[in-house]
């Protein structure tokens, strides 16, 4: 093996640069193996962190995911222009919200097969296929948001409507009448507007400017249908 030349230039030039002075006298013979460990302190810490999520307790894992979901709920309830929902998307929140909504909206013992509110499957299908259709629509129109990011935003922004459903159920425990209906109508309208504002805050920037209305209208229709299902719910 040739001598290891440790400078890119010719080490035997007669005008040595001060940086490489004295290096030409060094030669590494074959007999001495060069070995050792190169450790960078930061790196090993991160590697340790990654591998240890397998060993952590189940409670830690669940709490970490729950905290992430809770943080996103807060972002939906107080919508600011932030990227949290988009950057670390997850679909746990939408699943929980969708299942809650579908469980509470499904009709109980109906005296009639055909009439009545939606079944569990109908609500589930409307929410998920509605979200997928809206996402496909915005991508086809030229938006630059990824598929799951958009699903995540649309799913999380159902949270105000779920709160509206809970409030409506409580209100329905009281005496039925026009005041009952007015209160429910008001709550649903406010939450509907909140959902639209929250989802627009996250989604509008990803659309080309001359097609924003085309991409937002289906979101409006989606939340309108969900609001209608909540408003017409009768136990």
């Amino acid at each position: 093996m040739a001598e290891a030349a440790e400078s890119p230039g010719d080490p035997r030039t007669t005008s040595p640069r001060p940086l490489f002075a004295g290096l030409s006298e060094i030669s590494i013979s074959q007999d001495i193996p060069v070995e050792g460990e190169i450790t960078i302190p930061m790196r090993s810490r991160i590697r340790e962190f990654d591998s240890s999520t397998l060993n952590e307790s189940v409670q830690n894992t669940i709490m970490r995911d729950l905290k992430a979901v809770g943080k996103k709920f807060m972002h939906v309830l107080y919508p600011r222009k932030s990227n949290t929902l988009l950057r670390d998307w997850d679909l746990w929140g939408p699943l929980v919200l969708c299942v809650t909504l579908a469980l509470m909206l499904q009709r109980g013992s109906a005296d009639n097969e055909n009439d009545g509110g939606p079944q569990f499957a109908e609500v589930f299908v409307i929410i998920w296929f509605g979200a997928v259709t809206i996402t496909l629509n915005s991508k086809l129109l030229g938006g630059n948001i990824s598929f799951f990011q958009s699903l995540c935003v649309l799913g999380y922004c159902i949270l105000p409507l779920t709160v509206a459903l809970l409030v409506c159920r409580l209100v329905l425990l009281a005496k039925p009448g026009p005041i009952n209906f007015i209160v429910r109508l008001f709550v649903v309208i406010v939450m509907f507007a909140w959902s639209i504002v929250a989802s627009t805050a996250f989604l509008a920037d990803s659309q080309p400017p001359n097609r924003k209305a085309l991409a937002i209208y289906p979101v409006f229709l989606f939340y309108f249908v969900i609001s209608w299902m909540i408003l017409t719910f009768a136990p």
Partner: protein
Amino acid sequence: MAAADELAFHEFEEATNLLAETPNVTTVSRSDQRPPEGHVAVAVDPGGSYGAEDEVESDKTALLQEQQQQPGFWTFSYYQSFFDVDTSQVLDRIKGSLLPRPGHSFVRHHLRNRPDLYGPFWICATLAFVLAITGNLTVVLAQRTDPSIHYSPQFHKVTVAGITIYCYAWLVPLALWAFLQWRKGVRERMGPYTFLETVCFYGYSLFIFIPTVVLWLIPVPWLQWLFGALALALSAAGLVFTLWPIVREDTRLVASVLLSAVVLLHALLAMGCKFYFFQPLPLEHMAPTHQNTPPHPHGVLTPTPPRPTTA
């Protein structure tokens, strides 16, 4: 003088006729239709956002013509080409469908060989949901006057509405397009519309039913019939004016049969929706078991009161 002849002003329609003869050309550039020397070129307004780029496009036209070979149907960009519309274009097409003018074909004047699928899809979705929701709202409003009516959300009507509207908006244009392709040999001048253009103008023609259905909430029967007839007239007129340039070169029998079939199907859709989703209400509180049988659209309007349960 020959020069004066050549400098004569050409009507706007000539451009659309040229479009009709070469249906694969989009209106991005006009250098293909460059008039002979001495003519004053009429500036065709392509509309939308690509109007300003015409002057620069002349050397790009060849490239664009080559790009008409669309990407394969398995790629995403193939489908993206059907959604290549701006908000202003969609609104312009909706306005064009609301106000049909004789002699102005919707496809030539508003679509200009750039059909889109956004309009038909979302107009059908909106119409399906609006039908189900307003049909339900009529029950709510009737319940306020007559408390014995039992209110139920009737969610299955959403499914029925969706399936009906989407089937109409896709299967009828398919049949129409197939029929026109079959009769293609009879026509000399005008090429038939492509399938997408047919779906497109059918979809946009359904737009007028959305405000009509909302206006059907007013519980005055003659007003409902008036609005229905008005919407049907406007919508069917739009369809007829669009189909007329294609069909007028055919034999009179085929032309009249085709146009009357189109209008009849449209009328059937409108009446079926009116009867199914806006059932007259006194019938509902007379027998709860009536709702078990699937509702028959045309027999509902003159109900025979169900016999009371025999003692």
